[in-house]
């Protein structure tokens, strides 16, 4: 009964929405999240729930695949490092609110030590420990030896390496050009650009949350919601035919999910205007063009009005527009996902003649 409810609620629409809400809530109530009590309580809660879930044979069979074990480890590490940073930030925010220095700025923490041997020794030991870990890993989880490669056959489900499963999940909602080239390119370029876009000196050398709310929130949104969470979905909740399966649901290759997806042009011309698709490709895709250009440029005045002045004064117009473009690019993913779930939208702009589909 509970398991069925969990299966139902973990469908992408509900779990993604719930994750976004939880994410925003936890940033809103950083005074609760950033305490040791909360961190410990959440850890105990997660461990108890996980322990209960592991007793289910279907769930266990999925998580115990050698490819999926790194993701369990990854979850623990991401949970730990995110919470730790928020906790430290919250501690400093409290100190700053009391008019004190951040902990890192206190005299005993400003004392300097030599990189050699202090840092180099630590690095050496970390390197040795990582090597030992990898050797033990390689001994226990053997790489499978499969049949000779066959270009006319693909395993079902065909999954990317675990660190790319977020990308593969993204590809469900986008054309390969978008999700495979443009968006990953934007991620890489955007991450490289951050030090040049971000001219705010606050938070340099010490943890803080209050002073860097927007920067931390937007980074964590892209990292936790759009990357880590999608890896979870792609790993644990996608089975044969890339169909969605709940955590306790048997991977039945014949599960039928109705997902007739249609393009925006078809929705507008056929459903709304009751005519056939126009022959001219530009007329056919006129609505898609309007939506795409409206999203990229039409929203600017609105954004400017609400957040423009303050930011442009602080960071300059060019930095500001690049940042807005990157944010819009990032937000296009959740927007497209919701459009797919709500109105079965395949492509806003569909020009397969030119391999251009957005």
């Amino acid at each position, binding site marked *: 009964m509970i398991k069925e409810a969990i299966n139902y609620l973990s469908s992408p629409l509900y779990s993604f929405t719930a994750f976004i809400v939880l994410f925003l809530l936890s940033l809103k109530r950083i005074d609760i999240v950033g305490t040791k009590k909360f961190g410990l309580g959440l850890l105990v809660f997660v461990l108890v729930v996980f322990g209960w879930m592991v007793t289910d044979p279907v769930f266990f069979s999925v998580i115990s695949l050698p490819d999926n074990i790194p993701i369990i480890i990854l979850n623990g590490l991401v949970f730990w490092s995110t919470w730790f940073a928020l906790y430290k930030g919250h501690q400093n925010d409290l100190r700053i609110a009391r008019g004190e220095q951040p902990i890192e700025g206190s005299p005993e923490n400003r004392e300097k030590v030599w990189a050699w041997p202090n840092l180099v020794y630590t690095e050496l030991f970390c390197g040795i420990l990582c090597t030992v870990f990898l050797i033990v890993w390689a001994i226990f989880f053997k790489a499978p030896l499969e049949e000779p490669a066959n270009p*006319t056959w693909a*395993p079902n489900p065909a999954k990317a390496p675990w660190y790319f499963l977020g990308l593969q999940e993204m590809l469900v909602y986008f054309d390969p050009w978008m999700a495979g080239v443009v968006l990953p390119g934007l991620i890489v370029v955007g991450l490289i650009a951050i030090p040049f876009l971000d001219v705010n000196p606050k938070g340099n050398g010490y943890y803080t949350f209050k002073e860097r709310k927007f920067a931390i929130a937007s980074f964590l949104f892209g990292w936790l919601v759009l990357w880590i969470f999608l890896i979870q979905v792609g790993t644990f909740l996608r089975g044969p035919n*890339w169909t969605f399966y709940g955590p306790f649901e048997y991977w039945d290759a014949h599960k039928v999910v109705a997902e007739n997806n249609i393009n925006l042009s078809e929705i507008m011309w056929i459903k709304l205007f009751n005519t056939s698709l126009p022959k001219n490709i530009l007329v056919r895709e006129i609505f898609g063009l309007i939506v795409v250009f409206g999203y990229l440029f039409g929203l600017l005045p609105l954004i400017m009005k609400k957040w423009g002045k303050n930011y442009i004064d602080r960071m300059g117009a060019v930095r500001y527009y690049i940042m807005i473009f990157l944010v819009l690019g990032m937000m296009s993913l959740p927007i497209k996902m919701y459009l797919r779930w709500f109105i079965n939208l395949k492509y806003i702009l569909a020009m397969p003649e030119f391999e251009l589909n957005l």
Partner: protein
Amino acid sequence: MSDDAKTSLNRREFFSFLAVGWITFGAATAGFASLIFRFLYPNVVFEPAMDFLAGFPDDYPEGVDERWKNGFGVWIYKKDGRLVAMSNICTHLGCIPTWLPAESKFKCPCHGSGYYPNGINFEGPAPRPLERYKISLNPEGKIIVDKTKVFRYEKGEWNIDGAYIEV
């Protein structure tokens, strides 16, 4: 005096040394690059032929036939008096869809694209239908499938001569 002249270079000598150095370096690099380029083209390629004989049209039942899928990557589809050769490469990202007879559809294991038996895409992210290969009959009446020529639906090529044979 003469020793000094030997140990120091004048401007002209310096440039000739520089030129020799660069030419040598350029030649070595070009040679290495050409070796790498040559390495990209293997001596022997174990690939199925791009065209093959696929038996007589009467050998095929109505609907999707999988006998050439493994090995040649072609589905033969017979319906309403037409016989076509379908590519088995998903138009989304090039995975190999699975034919699901029970559901009567092709379903891609990579991102969940689905196609009707005739190759029209209807679910998942696939932006266009499966491509079709050139198909014709030889004088004996056997089917020749030629994978070098592709017919795409969205370009209106499925009704061109060569995209199908009448049976």
